[in-house]
């Protein structure tokens, strides 16, 4: 890891050197290089979460530029239900199905997003909890409003906002949705780093990391790297076995229980 960090720093240094030798009035080309301290996070029996660093360099970084790191986990469909008191007890009602919701979503930036980025840029790139796409296609239809076609309207009306907030709140509680203004640190000469924390309940799958360079409110360069979270070792074996050979897994579970129950009784009887 240290070797990789060094190579990257060297590369960044040569980049920066080349940039300096260019004439002052010429516009510097901008670019982002980035890497992770690990490409694969393995979930083993002692897994209690994971920490890693995103680091890299930006060429042509000038005063007032900002860097944003966005980590997007694997997507899945979610059913969100509202608790409604029925006959004195709280019952889950009014299900709304949301599609392609990130299992993990983290945004780290040099400053808080609204300080340097325009609303439309954040919305377009889906950066930040307020701009995260949380869509429930079954409750949506397109309408023409004020002469503008294709406006997406939810049949739930304003209530859909409560559902969306519930998703973000619930995920934030588990450490799955994180927003950290100031989480990206610019070290020197275009070098940056950001710490990312994966909680114990991190879903397995492919993660995409996007690093954006913002200038004058809009992203002018970006770079994507990927990360894989997977179960490993015995955890992997047991999980795959349970999913792929469910019947055999069930038989094994029963057999193990029978043997241990009977075996223990025999051992204690002889004592």
């Amino acid at each position: 890891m240290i070797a990789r960090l060094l190579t990257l720093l060297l590369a960044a240094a040569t980049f920066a050197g080349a940039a300096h030798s260019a004439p002052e009035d010429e516009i510097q080309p901008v670019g982002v290089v980035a890497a992770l301290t690990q490409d694969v996070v393995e979930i083993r029996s002692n897994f209690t979460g994971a920490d890693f660093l995103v680091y890299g360099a930006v060429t042509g970084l000038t005063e007032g530029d900002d860097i944003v790191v966005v980590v997007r986990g694997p997507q899945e469909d979610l059913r969100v239900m509202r608790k409604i008191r029925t006959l004195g007890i709280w019952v889950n009602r009014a299900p709304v199905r949301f599609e392609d919701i990130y299992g993990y979503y983290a945004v780290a930036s040099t400053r808080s997003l609204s300080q340097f980025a325009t609303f439309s840029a954040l919305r377009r790139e889906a950066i930040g909890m307020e701009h995260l796409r949380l869509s429930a296609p079954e409750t949506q239809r397109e309408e023409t409003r004020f002469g503008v076609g294709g406006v997406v309207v939810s049949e739930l009306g304003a209530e859909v906002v409560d559902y969306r907030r519930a998703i973000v709140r619930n995920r934030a509680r588990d450490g799955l949705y994180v927003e950290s203004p100031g989480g990206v640190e610019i070290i020197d000469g275009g070098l940056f780093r950001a710490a990312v924390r994966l909680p114990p309940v991190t879903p397995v799958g492919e993660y995409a990391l996007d690093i954006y360079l913002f200038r004058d409110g809009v992203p002018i360069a970006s770079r994507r790297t990927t990360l894989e979270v997977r179960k490993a070792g015995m955890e992997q074996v047991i999980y795959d076995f349970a999913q792929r050979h469910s019947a055999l897994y069930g038989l094994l579970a029963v057999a193990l229980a029978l043997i241990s129950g009977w075996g223990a009784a025999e051992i204690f009887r002889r004592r």
Partner: protein
Amino acid sequence: MDIYLPIAEVSVNLFLVLGLGLGVGFLSGMFGVGGGFLMTPILIFIGIPPPVAVATQTNQIVASSASGALAHFRRKSLDIKMGLYLLAGGIAGSVAGVQLFAFLQATGQINLVISLCYVGFLGVIGGLMLVESVNALWRRYKLGKTGVTPRPKRRKRGLIDAMPFKVRFPVSGLYISLIPVIAIGAMVGILAALMGVGGGFIMVPAMIYVLRMPTSVVIGTSLFQILFVTALTTFLQAAQNQTVDLVLAALLIVGGVIGAQFGARAGQRIRAEELRIALALMVVAVCLKLAWDLVSDPADMFELMHVTGAVS
């Protein structure tokens, strides 16, 4: 020390789970109860997803009932014919229960149904145990040790005897209709699938008071039925819902099996009334906690659920 459970997909403290297994195993050995009705809610309290808690606890009951069933089989203190009819009902109940479980899981109501079942059953059982053991203590206090326990009143000939499909059970000395037998078996099968319990706490009283079986064969026959029903339920939960966690099951089995042995020994020496009150209080406490969670304002008014493939 934390250990990651591959199916439950959460980390739990290894010693906490082992300790709970030992504790509940000890109680179950001492009182001759399965322990499922205590362990499943406790697993849910410590953060295991309810479907995994229920299915995995069923697996643990296979282990804990295996040794007991074997012992009764050796002593021939069971009515195999009765056991087989109960089992027939149990198989139907278990299959239906696992389907019902999958359906409730898909519609997002499984947690509520599990909680409601527990509140109902724990409330009744805990309440009865408490009343019974307080009465026993009171009698001992009043009469000393000479008090003769009054026999429970036998039911008069009634509805059960009027039912058709009568079969002779030589071991139990009964000639009764199959309808209540199958019904009791089926009820226990459904409970095993929905609540992760063996169902002995329902079946033993039902055998004694409804079927009027002789007490000498009741425990053996109920263990026989519980062993096969929980084995089938474990298999079906694993095959259909993929909710049996082998790592969690292993921890529970180790704790439970060892605890039960010590519990059984302790039970022979210690006077049980006071402890029975303690057990009753624990059951009532678990019941009240579950009931409170149902009626108190939830921390979050919304709940997120994974969409399972079957229902869209």
